[in-house]
């Protein structure tokens, strides 16, 4: 039993799933499901299809180089069964998997950081321009603290007397 990688989307193909296609030059293509198989028959290039791992790696959306990938290389020599080795390997697989997924999500978070600053800037600008949608103009005029823009309010003597009860 061997867990293969889908040729199109690079997800793991578990036993009992998917189709293997043997081309006339004896190259074998594994597919995880009929979606990938049909895309292959349509002669689509996975590097151009947005939801595949190949596209994401090529365009820097996902992590490409990491030392955790070294553990998952294809080995063709069968190992003699050793109970300790098997136990340690299973423990290691769990740990390495966790580390790899943490690093991958960090990679994506860092990638999205610059967008967050940009979005906040845009949001602030939009609030300034559209403050009349948020607060009524009358309320803005009365209480200048609600407005983000600096508005000059000419305070006359009569107005300050009216405000005094409010401040108390």
């Amino acid at each position: 039993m061997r867990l293969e990688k889908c040729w199109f989307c690079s997800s793991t193909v578990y036993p009992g799933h998917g189709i293997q296609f043997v081309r006339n030059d004896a190259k074998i293509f594994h597919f995880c499901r009929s979606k990938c198989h049909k895309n292959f028959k349509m002669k689509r290039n996975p590097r151009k299809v947005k939801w595949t791992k190949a596209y994401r790696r090529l365009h820097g959306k996902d992590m490409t180089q990491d030392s955790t990938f070294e553990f998952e290389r294809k080995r063709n020599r069968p190992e003699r069964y050793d109970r300790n080795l098997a136990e340690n390997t299973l423990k290691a697989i769990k740990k390495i998997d966790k580390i790899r997924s943490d690093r991958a999500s960090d990679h994506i978070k860092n990638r999205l950081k610059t967008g967050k600053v940009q979005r906040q800037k845009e949001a602030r600008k939009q609030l300034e321009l559209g403050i009349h949608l948020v607060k009524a103009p009358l309320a803005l005029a009365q209480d200048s603290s609600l407005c983000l823009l600096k508005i000059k309010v000419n305070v006359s003597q009569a107005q300050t007397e009216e405000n005094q009860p409010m401040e108390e």
Partner: protein
Amino acid sequence: MIQPQTHLNVADNSRARELMCIRVIGASNRRYAHIGDVIVAVIKEAVPNTPLERSEVITAVIISTRKELKRDNGMIIRYDDNAAVVIDQEGNPKGTQIFGAIARELRQLNFTKIVSLAPEVL
């Protein structure tokens, strides 16, 4: 799913190029032949000036089909074309070389010579 009138490529060097299935060997009501079935075929195209020539009736065993081969462990294998290997009455191949990957099922069906000649066994 090979039936009479199906054209098959020849996957060995037995000087025939293309076969047309005439009959599926087995139960008389059998409709389709799959990988590992023996068929009676007529040679539609052959390499010129060789012992095998056009419109000669021979037996062949099917090596690969475009219809998927399903295994008990859930593996499904599909090939790119329909191909056969020319054999004699005992099941020994007429040619000396086999081209292409061969499915493991042929070993269970006692085509050991074919399996041993194959470059790759799936």
